[in-house]
């Protein structure tokens, strides 16, 4: 077995660790400076890329990001979306909440007067493959387009009545569908009044 080195010996033995620490720290700083902006751009692009799908006529490049305080008192990020000509095309609200399996993150699009929902886009979900999974599909998302933002959405299992803010649930995935509707309702309820004030 080795003998313990006297007091100052630890520092001498640790010089390699300290040197490596500085070397690696420098390498990581270099990596962060060179790749950091690109990663940030990727993160932004994830949201901006789909904005034209949520708010028709929007130009993703003409989007501004704002942070406002919702009715629940917490800060929330919203996106003000413009057309290529510079007119206000609508608003996009990030929303999230608990789904059937895990957290669901989505974006809700509202028209400029905050009267109607223009569309939704599911960013992240881990629902059951083959059943709840389909909340990301085009056919489920378009059920939200045109619904009124003035009253809560209701989810029904069959024959949605026109004009009554009803969404047809996915067959075999009622809870996932309801979760999405709940998340949309909560987000609109939380942010509509503060947005009116802008």
């Amino acid at each position: 077995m080795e003998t313990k080195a006297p007091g100052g010996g630890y520092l001498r033995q640790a010089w390699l660790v300290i040197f490596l620490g500085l070397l690696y720290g420098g390498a990581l700083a270099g990596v962060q400076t060179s790749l950091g902006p690109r990663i940030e751009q990727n993160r932004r692009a994830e949201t901006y890329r789909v904005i034209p799908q949520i708010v028709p006529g929007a130009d993703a490049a003409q989007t501004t990001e704002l942070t406002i305080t919702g009715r629940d008192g917490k800060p929330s990020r919203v996106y003000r979306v413009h057309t290529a000509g510079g007119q206000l095309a609508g608003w996009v609200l990030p929303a999230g909440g608990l789904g059937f399996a895990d957290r669901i993150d989505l974006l809700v699009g509202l028209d400029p007067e905050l009267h109607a929902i223009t569309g939704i886009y599911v960013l992240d979900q881990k629902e059951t493959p083959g059943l709840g999974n389909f909340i990301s599909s085009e056919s489920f998302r378009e059920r939200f387009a045109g619904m009124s933002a003035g009253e809560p959405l209701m989810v029904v299992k069959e024959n949605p009545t026109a004009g009554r803010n009803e969404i047809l649930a996915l067959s075999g995935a009622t809870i996932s569908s309801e979760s999405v509707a709940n998340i949309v309702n909560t987000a609109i309820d939380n942010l509509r009044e503060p947005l009116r004030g802008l």
Partner: protein
Amino acid sequence: MDTLISLLQIGIGAAIINNFVLHYFVGICPFLGVSRKVETAFGMGCAVTFVISIAALLSWTFTYFILRPGAPLPGWVWRVAGGDPATSVDLSVLSYIMYIFVIAASVQFVEMYVRKFFPPLYKSFGVYLPLITTNCAILFACLEIMKNLQDPTRLWGLHEALTLALGGGVGFTLAITLMAGIREELDMCDVPKPLRGPGISLLTAGILAMAFMGFAGVDKSVADALKRLTENGTPRVEHRTLNTEY
């Protein structure tokens, strides 16, 4: 009440529904290696829970104050050193290194504690106690906490981080103890030769994972039920028919 409901969701989620071993696949090495006897397995589970909680406490503190984008401490140092106060300092590239050191320190601490207060337990653990450092479950808990400290509009507090850690540890203990019980029985069975040892353990784990899938949606139902009790109203969405489809 809202915080309590969300804590319950996080805790039940981590322990049962998204069980660390059977859903997220972290902590498999001890799960397969240490689960031969129920007592050892339970002891290992408790040790891991202990380490995970300490590691979560330390990593939340470091991440909140130092490592996240826009953290207060580096920002203060930057301003004192004369930097531009408008830029936010982001030290998150050092996260992984920080976490692994935090975990190694937690394991050292737990090892000293167990050696002092439970010597026979320490002897029975042998080499497995320091090996907890390479247990994916602990690093995974730290990573989950880091993930929830990235968005400034949705930051986790210490209570949520600790609930995740405790829930994860309890879930790990549950899974490993169940596995040990089953393996004790399997030792007396006639397992085909190629499958003896890790093979049959993995197949058993697969069936256990299937069983745990049945818990999906429990946290949401509990949360909804509690909300209904406290807010004295119905949730925003109506069912037309009463029977659910799951």
